[in-house]
Structures are given as structure tokens and as C-alpha cells.
């Protein structure tokens, strides 16, 4: 079974989120993922990275690793933030600040786009993992 691995580290700063999206979008395009799925991927990556920024951990980095195997791209986004999938519920929208609302919507988007996304604790933070099918 052939596997390809890719890795990106970016500073934990808002200005660098575009790099994470470009990285993800480029991989999806390289492996000929369709346009809509690529858009979904970029949203999910952006949401995961934004979540990491919200909690401002000490490490100062967002680490994204990608494994290509068996006709899928498996993304793992490591951050020191709170577990994104544990956050919030839609009933908090009414009184949420803009920042809180962004996190609520971000969780909703990841759950909708990648229902099988999983969260695993790491050293002081969490890894968010989801996969994107690629053509055979």
C-alpha cells in the first residue's frame, strides 16, 4: 500500500491561516479531489485553526499532518485549544458575542462537513482528525 505524508507547521497567528488553507487546497487539487469537496476541506481546516487561535496555547504553532492512503487524505490538525467537537450548542447563539458565535458556527460547520471527524487529546491540547476521499 502506497502512502504519502505531508506536514505543515504555521505560527499560531491569524495571518497564517491562509497558508493552512492553501496547503490543504493544494493537496486536494494534487490528488484530484472535486471542487466542492476541496471547498469543504478548506472550511474545515480554517475552522480547526481558528479554534486553536481562540485558546492561545503556549506552543505557538499549529501542526497539520496529512496522510494519503487508500484513496483518502487523512488530515490531523494538532492544536492546544479546547476540543472543538465538545464546544457549544445552537441554543447559545442568541446571546453569544461575535467570537463565541464564530466558535459555535465553526463547530457546526465541521460537524456538518465531516460528520466522522474525531478528536483525540494530546499533550495539553487536542488533535482533530478527518478524512477526505480522493479518486481511485
Amino acid at each position, binding site marked *: 500500500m502506497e502512502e504519502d505524508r505531508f506536514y505543515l507547521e504555521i505560527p499560531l497567528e*491569524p495571518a497564517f491561516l491562509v497558508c493552512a*488553507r492553501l496547503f490543504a487546497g493544494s493537496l486536494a487539487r494534487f490528488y484530484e479531489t472535486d471542487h466542492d469537496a476541496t471547498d469543504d476541506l478548506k472550511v474545515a481546516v480554517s475552522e480547526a485553526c481558528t479554534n486553536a487561535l481562540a485558546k492561545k496555547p503556549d506552543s505557538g504553532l499549529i501542526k497539520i499532518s496529512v496522510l494519503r492512503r487508500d484513496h483518502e487524505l487523512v488530515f490531523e490538525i494538532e492544536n492546544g485549544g479546547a476540543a472543538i467537537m465538545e464546544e457549544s450548542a445552537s441554543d447559545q447563539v442568541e446571546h453569544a458575542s461575535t467570537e463565541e*458565535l*464564530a466558535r459555535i458556527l465553526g463547530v457546526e*460547520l465541521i460537524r*456538518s462537513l465531516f460528520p466522522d471527524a474525531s478528536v483525540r487529546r494530546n499533550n495539553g491540547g487536542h488533535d482533530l482528525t478527518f478524512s477526505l476521499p480522493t479518486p481511485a
Partner: protein
Amino acid sequence: MKGEVDVYTAPRLREEILSQVDKGNHRIIVDLDEVDFMDSTGLAVLVGGLKRIKEHEGSLMLTRPKDSIVRILSLTGLNKVFPVFESVDEAIASEK
């Protein structure tokens, strides 16, 4: 608006909406034709802007969103919150 709206650029959108409201412009059209990407931060800014505008009984309409933005509006249910139009002219006409 142009380019990508995320946690880095969304504050500029927020400032512009609030600036317009402060100037007394309570019927705002946000034209998304040149917006290539938007995530939850951008959506939250739009919702925040709408809340402020509603205090003045105004309106905030979206025009010409790309398919990817239509999708996230739908996934979050915000397609039921914001009027969305295919053109700026249609949005303007809707207010008459």
C-alpha cells in the same frame, strides 16, 4: 469586499459594517462577488452586523455569493436569516 474572510480579515468587514451604521446607513448590501472564501468568523461578523442594524430597523442583504459561501450559509441555517440575491440591482429593488 474582496478576497478571503477569516479571523484575520473579518475585523475589517466588521469595522466597515459598523462604520456604515454609525453614518446612518441602515440598509446595507454586502456584495460577495469577489469573496473567494468565508468561514465562521465572517459569518459571525455578518450576524453581529445584522443585530446592530436591526436596532435601527434596517436590513443587511447579501449578493452574488459563490457556491462555497451559499453552502456554509445553508449548513449553518443562516440562509434563512440573510436575504440573498443574485445581483445588487435585485437587492436594491427588493427594498422598494
